């Protein structure tokens, strides 16, 4: 499974709920497969998708808030797992699309293959799911519908040469669309 396929499956499942997507190819894939008002495409500030998602989750308890993170991104802000785990937002679903690499900058390796991200998440009070196939992904998405968060989905994906287009919305428009949707 490549990121774009996995992003499409999770984004469709999220419906109208807000999604905060990490910078680089993550936001591009989301924009291409399922653009909508409540997507916050983070285009800079690497690492902070999880923190922005936490802020939205805390203030919108009736919505399920999805974070689309990469392994490189979450490794830059592991502290956010501590903060999320201490505040325990029930409506936060943290999805890490893990390809063991910084694909957006040329496939340089991250260290996610050498450690257990899911164990870190488990120890910071998340409910964890490790997913390696599309079939399992669909099953887990169904399973978590009635589960309280914080939930951590670690989706193992492979790298790919497929490239999505850049997000064409201007940052200020991304901001206003999200504000209007919440």
């Amino acid at each position, binding site marked *: 499974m490549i990121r774009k396929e996995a992003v499409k499956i999770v984004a469709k499942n999220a419906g109208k709920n807000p999604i905060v997507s990490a910078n680089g190819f993550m936001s591009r894939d989301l924009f291409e497969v399922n653009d909508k008002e409540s997507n916050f495409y983070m285009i800079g500030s690497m690492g902070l998708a999880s*923190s922005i998602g936490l802020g939205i989750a805390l203030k919108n308890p009736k919505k399920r808030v999805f974070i689309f993170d990469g392994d490189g991104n979450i490794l830059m*802000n592991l502290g956010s797992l501590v903060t999320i785990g201490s505040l325990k937002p029930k409506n936060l679903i943290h999805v890490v699309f893990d390809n063991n690499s910084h694909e957006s900058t040329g496939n340089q390796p991250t260290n996610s293959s050498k450690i257990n991200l899911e164990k870190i998440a488990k120890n910071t009070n998340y409910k964890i799911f490790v997913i390696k196939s599309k079939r399992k992904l669909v099953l887990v998405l169904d399973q978590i519908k009635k589960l309280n968060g914080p939930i951590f989905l670690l989706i193992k994906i492979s790298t790919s040469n497929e490239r999505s287009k850049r997000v064409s919305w201007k940052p200020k428009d991304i901001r206003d669309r999200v504000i209007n949707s919440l």
Partner: protein
Amino acid sequence: MNEEIQRKIFHYLKKRKIENFIGVPDSTLKYFIDEGLNNNNIIITTREEEAIGIATGMALSKNNSLVFMQNAGFANSISTITSLVELYKIPLIFLIGWRGYLPDDAPEHLKIGKIQPELLKMIGLKTKIITEKNWKLCCDWAVNQIKEKKPCALVIRRMFHD
């Protein structure tokens, strides 16, 4: 800045619909943060950038937020301020403790204390230095800035050693 005014600033901002106070502590802002903790209204994060991210999520939810930090944390946050807060024009108030303001402050504070005013200016973050005399005006100014959807900073000078 004295204890009484720091505690008053918290309530003054709270009354003006600043609802969230998020950041990394500074002894320069000790009583302000303490007042927030007493009111169960503070989130302490692991790093300053994390605080800015959370406050951004809250601002997108039409919820006004203040992010507090030392100036060491401000230096950590420059890329986040330029590529998130300023890029998307996220209305946030920064409250920054000016370490290294006194020329005989601790050695690790001196360099950042010296370059801080210029750094703020270079990145284009509008700033006011808040004192025991002008604090109400400064708070009103900051609240107005975020009403106009602009980020801004309030700086408190560190006038003591510990």
